[in-house]
């Protein structure tokens, strides 16, 4: 039995130590993922908390993750992000921070602006494309991991990343 399986078994028995270990291992990753999808630290904080509470709820109902904890958590995070934007029809894309645009140009601000532009561009992709971009290029997951989270084959992930990069290029070129 792998470490993760063991951890999962303990977590499914509501072992607080195991649950704390899961939180400590994945909370930062999930936070970053949500932040890269929403571009808002407050939203990332709230939704990260929701992800882990949903995990607890699932365990309590006897539906713990069966395969991979990370895939399971990213999937919950994705669903929450989709719900978040669905509830705010006017906020489907990440707005550029006007303060950054107007600010004096220095390296730090330039970097932040570049990131902000990139996040804004990502937010205009389809949900699947957003996921593959964030998970693969920003979070550094492998094709297999992304495939597991998205519930697709690795071949589909390769095709998806191709389309996503092309779309992103067009969006960025149009700016």
């Amino acid at each position: 039995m792998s470490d993760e399986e063991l951890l999962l078994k303990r977590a499914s028995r509501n072992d607080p130590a195991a649950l704390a270990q899961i939180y400590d291992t994945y909370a930062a990753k999930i936070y970053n993922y949500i932040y890269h999808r929403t571009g808002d630290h407050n939203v990332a904080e709230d939704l990260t908390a929701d992800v882990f509470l949903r995990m607890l709820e699932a365990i309590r109902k006897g539906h713990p993750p069966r395969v991979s904890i990370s895939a399971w958590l990213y999937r919950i995070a994705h669903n929450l992000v989709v719900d978040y934007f669905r509830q705010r029809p006017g906020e489907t894309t990440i707005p550029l921070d006007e303060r950054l645009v107007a600010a004096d140009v220095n390296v730090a601000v330039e970097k932040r602006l570049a990131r902000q532009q990139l996040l804004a561009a990502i937010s205009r992709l389809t949900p699947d494309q957003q996921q593959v971009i964030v998970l693969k290029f920003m979070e550094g997951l492998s094709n297999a991991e992304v495939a597991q989270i998205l519930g697709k084959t690795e071949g589909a992930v390769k095709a998806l990343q191709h389309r996503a990069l092309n779309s992103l290029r067009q969006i960025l070129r149009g700016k």
Partner: protein
Amino acid sequence: MSGKDFAAILDQALNCLREGKDMDTCLSHYPEEAEQLRPLLEIAIRLKEAGDTGAPPRERLLAARERFLRKALESKRVARAKPRFRWSFSLPVPAPGLAMALATLLLMVLIAGAGLVWAASQSLPDSPLYAVKLTVENFKLSLTFDPADRTHIRIALLEKRFEEIYKLSTREQPDKKTIDKATKVLENQLREVFGEMAKISATSPELPDLLEEMSIQMEKGESKLAEAKSKAAPQAKPAIDRALALVKWGHTMALTAIEDPSILSEITTRPIFLSPVTPSPAFEFTPSPTPSLHHTLTPSPTCTISRPTVTPHLTSTPYHPTATFTPRPTCTLPPSIITPTSTPTPHHFPTSTPTPHPHASPTPHHPTPTSTPQYPTPTPTYTPHPAGATPTPTSTQPHPTPTPTCTRPHPTPTCTPPHPTSTPTPEWTPTPTPRPTETPEPTETPEPTKTPGPHSITEAF
């Protein structure tokens, strides 16, 4: 080139970048596609840089972590409150025709049996259906093979036993024997729970959880039975006390086993409770030998545990001990505490003839005579010492001392020895010499009313 092929080449080029190689090196592997690949690889590099945001602000996750863990603990409590029954078995799938026949048969059995099983599930130990109830429970257990799962079920079943004792106790006319019978069933099942736990490896992470679950269940049992006792008719209370003692014992064992799981195997082999229905020598308090402080003239027991305070009246009335002092030795009482001596060592030689008329006022552990009695003879059999004086045994005879041999399961202090009702009632018959005008005749020697025989722990309640 098809889109599929290009997607594969793009993926290989991206992997090349991930390996830390520079873009030109990666593109050199695909000269024909290099122009098409370059802008996409550039975006990939930008994305990677944008993703390197580092760890999120610590304070943002700390508060959420606390909330999460608090919620996790709540979930754990909820999960414990509703133990799950999981059946881990599977049956071979029969052919369709046979399946239909089996299904019909099963349906008939179910319809006929469901009523019986339901009625049995509501039964109490004095019902003929109670055996069916226990059989159904055992059947469910027999379908579960994992010791941890079985233990979960067994712990949950204990709640039914508490409920049964509660119902029996709170009847208008409670029957002591039926409550004892229910307690016996509870005792057996407690033993089975610990036995099941003993099968689980001591290093298993499940064991502490199960023991904690057991401890919580015992706590619930204690409060349930305490409630029963508060509502029960007086005649049922001793029987409820026995059940309560058993549950407290189980609680202590669970808590002790959390610290030291090795005691689990010991618990299962050790008799844990002496039911009044079928007394066994376990858990007995056996005073041996029977205390007999029935010495006339000699010897005078110098009991440091209990001695009546002697308040002599200098009259010529013979001594009449009026008190029946009842010492209450406990399990931890060293047997040497009560050590009568055979040869009296009088500390005081009376110089006058009045007969002491001590008022034997029992003052346990505080032998403080208010005055020194004056005996008519120089050989008093019992010499009260001044307050604070230490009796000095001069020799040792066969000790008429209650030697509590209290065997009880570790470490529950539920063993309270019985009360040797009249044991050390020191009495003596003074032989006055010279006689005063009114000769003090020891009229009667109060006998110890009863020699306590072996008592069960249950009688302590």
